[in-house]
């Protein structure tokens, strides 16, 4: 058991070193002119209230500009429930009955 723990630690240490070393190359954090603050974001900030009429820009993005994402989101929630219901549904009250059904199946 000992050896593969060491191997994982070494591997993840190398991954961590690569990730932290590469942070220097990334655009600095919080810089007002960082590439991610480009004309799309400026459009959201300036036109946000006029286009969607809501002052909370994040709400305007998730419910109006990118509403399809939120529809996908509601579906992921619905799948979570459908999956859990399929798994823990009321059906299987006694695991014993599940056993004999399973080995004949």
């Amino acid at each position, binding site marked *: 058991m000992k050896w593969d723990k060491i191997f994982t630690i070494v591997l993840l240490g190398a991954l961590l070193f690569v990730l932290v070393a590469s942070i220097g190359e990334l655009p600095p954090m919080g810089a007002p002119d960082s590439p991610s603050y480009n004309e799309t974001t400026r459009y959201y900030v300036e036109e946000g209230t006029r286009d*969607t009429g809501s002052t909370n820009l994040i709400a305007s993005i998730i*419910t109006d500009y990118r509403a399809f994402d939120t529809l996908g989101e*509601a579906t992921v929630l619905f799948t979570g*429930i459908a999956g859990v219901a399929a798994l823990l549904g009321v059906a299987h009250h006694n695991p014993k009955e599940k056993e004999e059904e399973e080995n004949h199946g």
Partner: protein
Amino acid sequence: MDDLFVRVITKMILPFIQLYGLYVIIHGHLSPGGAFSGGAIYASSLVLYTLAYGLEKGQKRLSHNTSAIFESGGILFFIFFGILGIVLGHSFLTNRQAGFSMGNLGQVLSGGLIPVVTFVLGIKVMSTVVTLFHNMLEEER
């Protein structure tokens, strides 16, 4: 679990949590918060109720088929609003161009579809979290 103190305290604070949850949902497009966080706050009140009063009473508060209706209704409403955008001659999920009234900024009824969609989503998130909790609790019995 059926301790008297817990029940009385729950009875007292329940309406305040629910009021706060509804406030966060309805003011989703004005102040921080919105469908997901507001729904979770509202769900925490029902989870607290189920913890204090046991699963049967909890199930009476939000039974299986009402929660199923909330969840399915939530998505169907969302699709209906999207199709509404197409019917009015624009692409799917259009808000301002399709002519929904923008109202004046900073008021609850401003923003065309946004308050309605946020409210519908908030109810859906609430019923999902509560149903998850009830399913897990049922599993123990």
